[in-house]
């Protein structure tokens, strides 16, 4: 039995403790926002925050989570009405095409902004390693810059 927190709620998982967090979220907790893309930590579609740091949930065994706190895309916004600045920036720049990777991209960008308030292009390049097959990168880059502005006070 592994006990941890997901989006502020206490959860317990009694199955195979080697099960990756991604499948616990998706199949057991019915949180479908974190996506399966590669299963080997390459693409980042499954990205979540664990103890506030972005991680690939497809390669994180649930056994490693005892007592820890997990935030998924479903729990990123401060409230139902108010989006996280990164989500807001993603809407303003109209980033998604198919949209499948975007939850992971947003979790990665939120982590970046949490660590570096004013990221340079080099910071963005090195932090945003998630794959977008549709090639929305041009808008992702703009949206990260927009999120920085929103975080700094919403200047448009």
């Amino acid at each position, binding site marked *: 039995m592994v006990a941890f927190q997901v989006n502020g709620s206490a959860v317990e998982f009694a*199955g*195979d403790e080697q*099960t*990756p967090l991604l*499948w616990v979220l*998706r*199949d*057991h907790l*019915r*949180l*479908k*926002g*974190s*996506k*399966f*893309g*590669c*299963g*080997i930590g*390459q*693409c980042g*579609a499954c990205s979540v925050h664990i103890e506030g740091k972005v991680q690939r949930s497809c390669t994180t065994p649930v056994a490693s989570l005892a007592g820890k706190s997990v935030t*998924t*895309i*479903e729990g*990123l*916004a401060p409230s139902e009405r108010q*989006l996280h600045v990164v*989500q807001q920036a*993603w*809407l303003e720049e*109209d*980033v*998604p*095409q*198919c*949209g*499948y*990777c*975007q*939850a992971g991209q*947003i979790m990665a960008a939120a982590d970046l902004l949490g660590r570096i308030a004013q990221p340079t*292009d080099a910071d*963005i*390049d*090195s932090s*945003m*390693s*998630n*794959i*977008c*097959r*549709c*090639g*929305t*990168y*041009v*808008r*992702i*880059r703009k949206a990260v810059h927009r999120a920085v502005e929103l975080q700094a006070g919403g200047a448009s």
Partner: protein
Amino acid sequence: MNMRARDTQDQPLSQSRRRLLVGGLTATGGFMLGWPLINMQTANAQASSTQKIGYFVEIRPNGDVIIGVAQPEMGQGVRTALPMLIAEELDVDWSRVQVEQMPLGIVKTADGFTWKYGGQGAGGSTSIIEAWPFLREVGASARRQLVQAAANRWQTGLGQCRTEPGYVICDALDKRLAYSELVADAAALPVPEDPPAMKAASDYRIVGQPKPVIDARDIVTGKARYGLDTDVPGMKYASIERCPYLDGAVAKLDDTAARAVPGVLDVFQIEGPKEGEPYFILANGVAVVAESTWAAFQGRKALQVEWTRGPHSKESTESFWQQCNELLASPGQVVRNDGELDAALSASAKQVEARYQQPYVNHAPLEPQNCFAHVQENQARIIAPTQMPSGASRAVNEVTGIDRENISVEMTRVGGGFGRRLTNDYVAEAALVSKQAGGLPIQLVWTREDDVQNDFYRPSGMHELKAAIDEQGKITGWTHRLASTSKYYRRPGVEADKMFEAEMYVDDFPAGLVDNLRIEWLAVQSGVPRGSWRAPAHTANAFVVQSFLDEVAHAAGQDPLALRLALYGENRELPYGQHGGPTINPWRLSRLLQHVAKEIDYSRKRPDGRAVGIASHFTFGGYAAHAVEVSVSKQGELAIERIVAAVDCGLVVNPRGVEAQLQGGTVDGLSTALNLQITVKDGQIQQSNFHDYPLLRLAGVPKQVECHILPYGDAPTGMGEMGIPTLAPALTNAIFNASGVRIRNLPILDQLRQAMA
């Protein structure tokens, strides 16, 4: 090729309007056809609060407008662009519009199956072209019914009434009614047979305005539902271990350990097609059904399977290129022959000749293939991310025998398509698994490895080009000989002498512009499955032709841009018999080239090692051009400094969406040109996941990517595919101009460094 018409085999949409109207009920009785203004109330709609007008439009008492989208959304933007067409003519406030994905709608008639909501399927960049007349008419018809209802209420003439978004207004009577107050009356009115009046383009309020992705908020909050997010109560999970050898089979199976994995419910073999027979699924395999996805994966790992090596166990990428070389030594099937090529060659002042290679590539949509299937004795329910829902229905019918009337197909948002999900093999697999598991509702989940190793890959081939140039530097002869693997491989009903049609679009540039032209095709034997990969043969042929055109320009001492402008000529339509026709206007390519050349400052002198390359191409009715600026160091390190792209897709419905497709196509073209290939050894696909099939990441995308839209005419063309083909040749032309190294084989990988070492 119009993929939809070809793939579905269902009746095309272009039935007469009269028949749709008058024959709202078919001769055999009872079925409503796809006419949008039949009064439809869904079973669960509360008549007092919600009224639907036809299949597509529902207007709620609070003024919200729900518009149904019949086409699958895979990132190409139809879920936003198609409702814009209805909303424009219906005359509603876009901010009140919400969209709903409609399921597959097919209806059995005496003449076979026909469409309930109009043709459904996304392929060949056709959605917007086909929807342009149809959905505007849906909106205009609904608007006319609302206006008629108001006129009746006010006892005045239709001509006395006009609309503003969401309202019917009679200025003479000083009256005004919201659509929501009229919708019940409007839905009950008879539908006139004459077509409704449509707006003049100058009156558009929605079409032509940049509209963001309509369900983007669901995407950024994790609420959007893709195929893999399907969650049906009681659903089990399945995964299939497929034979790693092309056309191999199970020789011996020991499933003892797999069955002992906690959560595993069942293990059984899935039988694939016999060698050479049409693919209904791709491979023989062993299915594991379990209580969770992870348990199914663990069960697969515990399987002990011995495979036969199949008939292609000696096939490799090396043997493939050797075969191409041998084939090109002999004449091929002549598929176009204009003038006297041989005479032009012997009379030429100069000849240029080159060979190019294109690898197999994988579609790699980020959402791996998956499908929910619940197959019972006489009915089946399918929920799938598919580009071709009618194909899904047929696939299930084929493997279960269940009548298509009793197969429901629901569509989710699709996590990328790129042509992979035109083929419903994973739907057939899911139906087989559900059936063989005794009718359990199951979700079949492919891993990334399954997806990379089991695909209908983009065909691979070797191209030989030769041009004759006269004393004045004019191109007098051109021949293009292609040895390749047709994507029609194992497709039923395609004769051997038609296999080339998927690989060589014979009216493509420079057909019609060079007097003496010969195109030949040679069939390469390969056991690798292949299919439609975004912009199919255009990605291969635009690279080759636009690269070779630069080679010709350099040989003739001409500027590549000037040569193109001279060849493309004046503003006129030339015949074009393949998909995207019936005509092509090369002048529209000139217009785009001049635009990107100006933007990138084409004629500016740049320092050594830095240069610009250009390319332009016509794809499925749309026109595109790229200008790419690169730096190449003395060691052969490539830096892409700037990309300028331009597209002419006719009338622009949603500029935001068009720009997105051009940006995405540009990145897709770059990613594929730089790094992507599928190789074969001993009859096995060698790549398996994103570590060895390295799609481009953010860091690899230049900081300056600029996209321009040049509108043209009064009707739109699709936009899903034309952004790709010109990127690769513009890039390799830039590389040549910067370094003198001509890249003729894709992907580029480290060829540049090797050449300059």
